[in-house]
């Protein structure tokens, strides 16, 4: 019976790990971002599951329910997860913007292709890899 109660957690772990796998194994950058989303959603379930109380209701006081002795679910994980969701979407937006710029510069969103381009670039420059493309310091003012 105890393990039945943990079944939820285990599925959540599988979901998290699916996301994690996409993040580290897939070369496609957009896929990585989607994977990050899956991973984080998994964490959200985990938190929210912690706060669930059997037979409870959402932690909003309603007059009609107040009369009966109502059990409420724990609101704290919900609050934490609201914050985490926002963090997640912020990270995702940032990542996608980076991907768009990377595609502009490399014409690819596959990590291994980009690595190959970098390597080629290195070889073409005969080791002068780090030569700066920043504005040349002409007549500094």
């Amino acid at each position, binding site marked *: 019976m105890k393990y039945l109660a943990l079944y939820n957690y285990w599925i959540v772990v599988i979901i998290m790990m699916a996301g994690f796998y996409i993040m580290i194994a897939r070369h496609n950058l957009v896929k990585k*971002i989607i994977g990050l989303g899956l991973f984080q959603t998994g964490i*959200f379930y985990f938190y929210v599951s912690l706060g669930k109380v*059997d037979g409870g209701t959402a*932690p909003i006081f309603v007059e009609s329910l107040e009369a009966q002795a109502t059990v409420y679910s724990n609101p704290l994980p919900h609050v934490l997860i609201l914050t985490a969701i926002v963090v997640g979407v912020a990270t995702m937006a940032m990542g996608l913007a980076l991907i768009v710029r990377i595609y502009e510069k490399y014409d690819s969103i596959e990590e291994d292709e980009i690595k190959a381009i970098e390597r080629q670039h290195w070889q073409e420059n005969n080791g002068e890899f780090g030569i700066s493309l920043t504005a040349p310091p002409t007549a500094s003012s």
Partner: protein
Amino acid sequence: MTEQLVIMVLLSFLVVIAFGIILLKDLLVAVILSGIYSLTAAAIFVVMDAVDVAFTEAAVGAGVSTIFLLGALTLTRRQQKQQKHNNYFALLVVTLTGALLIYGTLDLPGYGDGQSIANQHPQLAQHFLQKSEDEIGIPNVVTSVLASYRGYDTLGETVVVFTAAIGVLSLLGLRRRKREEDPELDAKRQCRQQNEEV
């Protein structure tokens, strides 16, 4: 028990979607799937009594995130390249991490256990549920905690969103449209100018 069954079914559904995302090469489909995934997630959150979370997940995960992902896809490409071989190292890492996590769950209080320390902590969970009405006076405990008890976290959260906007602005910028792209828009601008002159 029905509740538990619903959750189990939905979670299993999520697993299927997650594996679909791993395997599919078409990024557009993957994005749509992740949208569905978020919507399902929102449903699960409702069943788990986390209505605020569900609301947010539906709005953000299924809504805004999907739009951003679609936007990024239109700006890049739709197909994922075929990967030549499976990444066994990644599989190993993931398996180990997952095994560690499952090992950790063994001592967790069972799902829905109202007596767990997390749900019974007198200064946190129980304090919010029992005293927030007297201390804050609003019915939605989540809002009380969010905006008052842990208002500082929410300030941080707002700053995170703000940072993301700054970051994307600095990366992509707001580029001006060229006029000829949208003649209708041009007409409107002129119209507006005329109005101002009048």
